């Protein structure tokens, strides 16, 4: 099928790029987590954007050597600032300084863009990212660059890891600490600066942090953490890319969401699978109880909402209606039901007319006799009329819908609320029992396991 091969051709390079990104970023992410400066990449990326924008404002294209030089210079300044913050961090958390660097760099970029509007393209690009349209030469460039930086990190792994891990820089001179810190931040800055123009800030941040967090959940040993982070990061990227294709979603955002999904799964796996059987049972019970409680509380809130403001938006009712296929027509009289259905039909039909006229006008732009301005005006006025009529039909639908909600007010609202309350009471029964027990217990009898049995009171 050509559609399938098209998809593969389209997704192969982005996938290759994300594999390269994951290998480098997840490793740096472990450092960043240990240094407790998770937003450093945003600050450095923004500084590089500022550099590129300043280059542009001074007359160099962002892609020129000068443009790259400016970006590099600004990120080096950022690396130096982050190095300095280690000594400042005695008084305030380093994260605060990272945040300040990020915000100030962003604001400065906006000010520079205001002077040189064409530079805005670069800023937009960093925000949105474009991993989907990455080119083979870029992937190769990233692979070589990261191999070099990775090699450097491997050579200097001992001092770098020691500095990331610790708060104490014991046994080292202050100068040595500074040099190591600066080298780390500079290499980090180069990686982030290069990846952010392709992947965008959101994806770079999540590739950096999420796999490293997932790895760290399961182990404290660097090799294990990395192995988990790399595999999960690559799988999550593949899932995100595939989902983005299948569901027609913007790629970067879909990949970020996929990473988050894997983090959630990892969290569940941690508390449900990687524990002894007794804790697993307890955790399962807590999970089940919380989910059930959340559903019951939602049901209670919706029922009360339906009873108090029946004509308002009823999100839960709408979800139930669309899931079960039981439309709002249930509570309508036959004549009203006909009106509702014909309004639905007509609204669609009028919308269809508007689209048909648009298609006709569009075709006439380049084929057949051109339409005159008066023809165009006539079409536009028909379309406006159809739009108004469609709005009228939608209004009819809304009126009838709120009518059904008024009728459903007590019929649905009261049982819903009662079920929810009964359910909540049932779930907390042990809590009440426990209290009862606790008050009327005779001295000397054994302690009932009340606290262990009332999950709703824990967490």
């Amino acid at each position: 099928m050509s559609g399938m091969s098209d998809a593969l051709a389209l997704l192969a390079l982005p996938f290759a790029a994300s594999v390269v990104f994951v290998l480098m970023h997840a490793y740096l992410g472990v450092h960043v987590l240990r240094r407790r400066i998770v937003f450093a990449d945003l600050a450095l990326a923004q500084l590089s954007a500022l550099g590129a924008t300043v280059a542009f404002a001074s007359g160099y294209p962002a892609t020129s050597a000068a443009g790259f030089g400016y970006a590099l210079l600004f990120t080096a300044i950022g690396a130096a600032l982050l190095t300095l913050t280690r000594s400042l961090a005695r008084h305030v958390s380093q994260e605060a300084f990272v945040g300040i660097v990020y915000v100030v760099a962003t604001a400065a970029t906006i000010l520079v863009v205001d002077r040189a509007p064409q530079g805005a393209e670069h800023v937009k690009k960093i925000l949105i990212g474009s991993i989907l349209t990455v080119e083979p030469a870029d992937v190769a460039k990233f692979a070589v660059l990261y191999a070099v930086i990775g090699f450097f990190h491997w050579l200097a792994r001992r001092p770098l890891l020691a500095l990331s891990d610790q708060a104490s820089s014991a046994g080292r001179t202050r100068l040595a600490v500074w040099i190591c810190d600066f080298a780390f931040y500079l290499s980090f800055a180069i990686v982030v600066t290069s990846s952010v123009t392709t992947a965008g800030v959101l994806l770079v941040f999540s590739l950096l942090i999420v796999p490293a967090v997932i790895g760290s959940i399961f182990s404290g040993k660097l090799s294990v953490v990395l192995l988990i982070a790399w595999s999960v990061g690559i799988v999550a990227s593949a899932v995100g890319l595939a989902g983005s294709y299948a569901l027609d979603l913007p790629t970067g955002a879909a990949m970020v969401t996929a990473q988050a999904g894997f983090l959630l799964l990892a969290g569940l796996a941690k508390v449900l699978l990687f524990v002894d059987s007794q804790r697993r049972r307890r955790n399962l019970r807590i999970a089940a109880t919380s989910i059930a409680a959340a559903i019951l509380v939602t049901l209670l809130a919706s029922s009360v909402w339906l009873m108090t403001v029946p004509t308002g938006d009823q999100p839960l009712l709408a979800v139930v209606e669309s899931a079960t296929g039981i439309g709002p027509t249930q509570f309508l009289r036959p004549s009203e039901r006909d009106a509702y259905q014909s309004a639905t039909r007509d609204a669609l039909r009028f919308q269809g007319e508007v689209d048909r006229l648009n298609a006709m006008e569009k075709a006439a732009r380049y084929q057949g006799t051109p339409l005159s301005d008066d023809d165009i005006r006539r079409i536009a006025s028909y379309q406006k009329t159809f739009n108004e009529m469609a709005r009228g039909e939608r209004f009819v639908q809304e009126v009838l819908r709120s009518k059904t909600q008024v009728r459903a007010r007590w019929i649905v609202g009261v049982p819903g609320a009662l079920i929810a309350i009964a359910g909540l009471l049932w779930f907390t029964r042990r809590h009440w029992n426990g209290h009862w027990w606790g008050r009327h217990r005779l001295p000397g009898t054994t302690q009932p396991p009340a606290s262990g049995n009332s999950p709703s009171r824990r967490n």
Partner: protein
Amino acid sequence: MRAGLLGLVAATALVAAPALAAIDVVATTTDLAALVSVVGGSLVTVESIVPPGADPEAFEPRPGDLGRLRRADLVVRVGLGYDYWLDALVKQTGEKRLMRGGEANLDASAGIPLLEIRGQSVVNEGGHAHGVANPHYWLDPENAITITAGIAEALIRIAPGQREKIVANRAGFLAQLDARRARWSQTLAPFAGTRLIAYHNSWPYFARRFRLDVMAVIEPKAGVAPSPAHLARVIAAGRKAQARAVVHEPYEPEDASRFVAEKLAVPMVRLAVSVGSIENMGNYLALFDYNVATLAKALGARSP
């Protein structure tokens, strides 16, 4: 940068009519500012709120604009939700005459034959503008006739004594426009029916006037990256229909446009959406000179 064009206009105004207090006009975009300056000539000083080259649909006004608006004798806007931020800005000034429907507020879209009317009649949904109809109507040179008519009428209302001068200015501009329009149409005539892909949906009016088929748009919603499925559809459709160029707006990120162009082995053409979105483009006629020549060159290079 924005001082360039406007300073020039202001300077000529000061030199030519030192005795007269010039009519102070604020236009939202550079295109409208350019048209105001040809109609008003030495009688007006005109400034645009959006600087040349900036994206008017993603624009953030600043305090200086308030002062500029307060002093203005006339505000000219694109309308159709394109410069939706003007309403909030004018409200800040508290000047009733500048507000929608006020005597000093000119919506240049009045009387324009509008394309691509949409379902919503409410403007300004989510900050994006294509609510009522496609707003890029100044990209049809013929619409300049209607736009300048509105501007001339508004200026005459402010300075009735200058009627003749204003009418003559406009007639002079329209004569120039007429001559060029014939030339532009002639240049693009061989490419009638040519299929193009655009990054943003900025070109329906341009396409209608010059008989082009903008068959697909890469960016489905402003500021949202295209999904792979959408991109694959665009490429497949472009390949099937033999699209011959990808048209790109200068202030948008290039990657997706370049990617589609490379897949289809066609040129990517940067066309100016507004006066000044390409360097050294000072006026409305130059906008079309540039776009027509650039497009013809890109398409001509590949024609058999």
